[in-house]
């Protein structure tokens, strides 16, 4: 066996940047779970749709990438509100099965519609963090800096900074605005929220909006690592995000982000770096999925509330 420690930092950096994206999608799951105790299985497909919106706006219409991302996040948020209003609100919030089935149905429909419009080829989407901007002094190359003898890609740095900024914005919205306070109240105790005059439906719609925007951000950031956008791009990422959310605790926002990052690290270091030595290249993708399922299984068996959560996951 041949353990190559020289390349280990590469794998760690990679794991941390993929993990940050899992964290963003996990956060999208957790925002809705915390408020409704529902797992929104359409999270990944909504995010994929958002990434395609960026594709249309930026690659086809030529709109500036960051503006396209802002518009796509806004449209995703609107779609989230619409879904909450039309597809989930009419159902009894105590009865989870219908709504879970609806989110599964949405998953299939959005995937099929996207496949119909854009077919299943991978389409290139500009990497928002391809090259350092000109004003950054060169610290190695124009796409990376040298750290520990390895290359830390501009892309990874960009992903971390963007998500850090997005998390900061989220915490401002949740902690400093009246709508954010109402959302935290609904997440904590729906009935009491109603008793202080909060319109719980509208407030849940607000949560769907934020969650959808976050998912879209995650999908746009992950696209370059997948070679571009395609209708199936989020399928496995949703599973890793679920593993991250379960690991961190389905009702803990910070836990979701950390859980996602941990899953990315486990994947990169244990599976991609270590596993390849033990099992060989051939089994890589199956091992990565197996690791995610293993994480979910172990957490549910031994620590159902996750590392940072409080509520047990009793049912989906």
């Amino acid at each position, binding site marked *: 066996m041949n353990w190559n420690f020289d390349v280990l930092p590469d794998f760690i950096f990679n794991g941390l940047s993929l993990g940050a994206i899992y964290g963003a999608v996990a956060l999208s799951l957790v925002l809705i779970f915390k408020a409704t105790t529902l797992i929104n299985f359409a999270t990944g497909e909504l995010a994929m749709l958002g990434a395609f919106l960026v594709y249309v706006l930026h690659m086809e219409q030529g709109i500036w990438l960051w503006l396209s991302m802002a518009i796509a996040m806004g449209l995703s948020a609107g779609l989230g509100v619409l879904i909450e209003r039309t597809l989930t609100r009419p159902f009894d919030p105590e009865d989870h099965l219908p709504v879970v089935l609806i989110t599964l149905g949405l998953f299939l429909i959005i995937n099929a519609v996207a496949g119909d419009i854009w077919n299943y080829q991978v389409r290139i989407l500009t990497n928002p963090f391809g090259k350092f901007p000109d004003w950054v002094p060169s610290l190695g190359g124009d796409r990376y800096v040298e750290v520990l003898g390895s290359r830390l890609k501009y892309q990874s740095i960009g992903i971390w900074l963007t998500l850090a900024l997005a998390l900061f914005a989220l915490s401002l919205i949740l902690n400093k605005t009246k709508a954010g*306070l109402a959302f935290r109240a609904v*997440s904590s*105790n729906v009935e*009491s929220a*109603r*008793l*202080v005059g909060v319109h*719980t439906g509208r407030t849940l719609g607000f949560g769907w909006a934020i969650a959808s925007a976050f998912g879209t951000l995650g999908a746009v950031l992950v696209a370059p690592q997948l070679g571009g956008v395609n209708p199936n791009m989020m399928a496995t990422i949703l599973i890793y995000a679920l593993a991250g959310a379960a690991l961190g605790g389905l009702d803990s926002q910070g836990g979701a982000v950390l859980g996602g990052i941990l899953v990315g690290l486990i994947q990169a270091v244990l599976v991609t770096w270590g596993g390849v030595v033990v099992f060989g290249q051939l089994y890589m993708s199956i091992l990565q999925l197996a690791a995610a399922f293993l994480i979910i299984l172990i957490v549910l068996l031994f620590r159902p509330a996750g590392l940072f959560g409080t509520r047990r996951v009793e049912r989906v």
Partner: protein
Amino acid sequence: MVDDVFDEVGLKVEDLHASYGAVEVLRGLNFEVAAKGVSVILGANGAGKTTTLRAICNMCSTSGKVTLGEEDITRTGTAEIVRRGVAHVPQGRGTFPELSTMDNLMIGAYTRKDGEVRDDVERWFEIFPRLAERQDQLAGSLSGGEQQMLAVARALMCRPRLLLLDEPSLGLAPLIIEDLFERFGTLNKETGLTMLIVEQNANLALEMADYGYVIESGEITLSGSADQLRNDPAVQEAYLGA
């Protein structure tokens, strides 16, 4: 000023029915709470006290008529009823355990648009100093008595015209209950806030109330001034442990 915070308004309930599924739990209640007054509904476990308060706030399927002051609120949605000035402290207190004490109070003022929310926080901190000490603590980490105070203070933050209290004494030590009811009494005397309290613990409730009702299996079986009820042999036996 504390005494001009609340408007004065009474509550009138006529032929109130409520059911869960096919089971009828309230079978035609009639009662009133006088403006500025304190009324108490006494009843054993399962008599329908909680359902009565929930029915007033339109939180279960009901028929009959509920009038707040001059307004018919029978068909009004719960959130809107709160906006009209009804504050409901549910059984089990219903605080937001994952929110800080301060955030619990701020969300209580959710329906308000005036600029005096902070003044009110200070006002209730004066009446409940323990809450001031614990303002940054999560509500879930407060003691039972502190949580009950928080639930009441939160309800007051919406500047209600009517305060509904569902078994505020439940699960609290006798000394704490006594202290709590004393504060309720002070609140009513100083502000004229109309209150409807439902209780199993009749002693203190009757002491501060003007008027009382007894509910059994979803029906009012007895009513009268607080003094009359206190001296009623049936009430003494069933609710005063005499």
